[in-house]
């Protein structure tokens, strides 16, 4: 069994525990217990993030026999796991939403690692574009959690409409813009042609356009914008997890 599995498994369990605590703790009435619960959830999320970082580094280590999407999924989960500062007044049930993308990614990474650890012959060297896209996917997972949380923001919460709380989608879109722009500029410079038309380029362009659509949606349509961010983030995560495979097949 690969050393990746115990780290990812522990992180997955920790994140599930954090999700459970977040759900259960929000039903507590006394403020001191509620604050302690929230602090515990934050600590657990940091620990899970650290475990996942170790898991991701091990997955990319030369001796690891993991291949395919597992290292990408684990790194994305590591970036999505740490807590962010909440300034929204979220509904109780919505407190768990920002944790769910990290749980999903870590779980998928664990299942993939268990499935491929024995069968595969080792992961190939990671290219800078793959790494950048995976980081972008991790930021998109954070944005996904935040956007999902938008559906649980209490009515009349002014903070929900302010743009300065949106750093994960901004960072994901900014990095994606650099990746897509860099790819097109390199194509133009080297080949004289911006658009090669390979499946990987078409996917990248499609995901960037989806993010642009989400970004352009007016902030006053908070839920529509959040829905578009969720769709764009899901597309980016799928692309980041499968980009190496698309690159090979195109």
């Amino acid at each position, binding site marked *: 069994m690969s050393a990746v599995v115990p780290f990812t498994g522990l992180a997955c369990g920790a994140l599930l525990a954090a999700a459970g605590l977040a759900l259960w703790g929000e039903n507590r009435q006394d403020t001191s217990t509620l604050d302690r619960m929230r602090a515990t959830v934050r600590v657990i999320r940091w620990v899970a993030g650290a475990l996942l970082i170790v898991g991701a580094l091990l997955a990319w280590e030369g001796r690891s026999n993991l291949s395919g999407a597992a290292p990408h999924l684990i790194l994305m989960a590591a970036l999505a796991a740490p807590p962010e500062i909440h300034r929204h007044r979220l509904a109780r049930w919505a407190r768990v939403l920002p944790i769910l993308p990290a749980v999903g990614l870590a779980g998928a990474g664990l299942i993939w690692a268990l499935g491929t650890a024995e069968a595969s012959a080792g992961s190939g060297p990671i290219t800078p574009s793959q790494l950048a896209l995976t980081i972008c996917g991790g930021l998109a997972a954070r944005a996904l959690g935040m956007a999902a949380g938008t559906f649980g923001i209490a009515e009349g919460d002014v903070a929900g409409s302010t743009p300065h709380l949106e750093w994960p989608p901004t960072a994901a879109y900014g990095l994606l*813009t650099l990746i897509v722009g860099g790819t097109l500029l390199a194509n133009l410079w080297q080949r004289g*042609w911006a658009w090669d038309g390979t499946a990987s380029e078409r996917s990248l362009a499609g995901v960037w356009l989806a993010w642009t659509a989400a970004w352009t949606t007016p902030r006053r349509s908070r839920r529509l914008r959040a829905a578009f961010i969720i769709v764009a983030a899901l597309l980016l995560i799928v692309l980041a997890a499968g980009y190496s495979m698309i690159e090979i097949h195109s």
Partner: protein
Amino acid sequence: MIDQPPRDIWRAVWQVATSDYLFVALLLSIVAGLAITVCLPQMPVTDPVAYARWLSDAQARFGNATATMQVLGLFTMPHSFVFRALLALVAGSLLLRLVEDSERLRQRRAMSEPTEEWHTLADVGLHDVLEDLSRRHYRVLNASPLFQADRWPWADLFPALAHAGGLLFLIGLLITTLWGWQVEGLVIQSGERATLPDAQAWVTLDRDGANTAHSPGLVTFFEERGPGVRAAAVDGIGQTLSLQQTTDADPVTQLTLALTEDQYFAIPEAQLIVRLAPQTGHGIETQSPVLVQIYRSPPGRLATEEFMEADMELAVDNVTLKLVSVPYARLTVTANPGRWPSFAGLVLLGVGLLGSMAWPARRFWLREESERVEGTGNLPLALVESGEA
């Protein structure tokens, strides 16, 4: 009877044409088109062999639905009328948005009307807030009783740059589609001059096979490099012998071969067959050694063999085989008059988008109503929190 003001239809059309929602809908339609191109194998348009392979794959995968899907243009999405019309609509929308951006920049010192809901800000005095804003270098405009504050008054420049960049990029793509061309897989050997589609353009490869020279306006991209040879043979009295690559080929006195794979030719008058086999794994591909083997025909027995690493001569009986190194390159040659508009468009688009992210247009309004301060728009966090406290 109440007189209703006449509705300005052109204003309504303008608002729809420049609305964010229409732009988002257009972008999402293009995303759907691109998703189809990723999910469904697209039909190769230039290569007949690739087309035949694609057709058999598509028929195996989609069965009887293949013909219907082909009629619907699902296999030629990037070349379809609908996809191109969508790109044209995006370009039109970008142009209108650019006009609106320039109008906004022109009127940057004018107050605008808030459209969003007002929120009461508790525990703050309007005078203190305004003082704090000027200390933080906000620009505050006053049209009593309304105050408009801008965090970065010049932030409207970035959306204009992004829209101009997007438009320029699409214009570049249009120019590329109309007047650009690309030749893929062009094999050329050093010293050779290849003439390209419009008959005016040409490309040559230098002696080492490392660089190209070409007519102005072309871009060459090396897909592959490798060794090649120019072969000639003479007999014992110095008379040139003819060489033949296949049985139905015309005999020639000199043969130039790109060693993309093993190559064979015959010297019929000497009854010899020559095999040239490039060796892989060499650092500089154009200088890879070539295994030269000469067989007698008949009976097909190896007469001699040697590795060629530079120009060489090889003798068998009275025949001397002269081999000169002539490296080859497989190139993609592109003529793209839309290259520089596309390049400039991408740079402007990137600067505009990244600038919008770093310095977003953050505008809000304040007013005093019944001795209470109210705010709307993109309020700073400190004011929001004072409102929530």
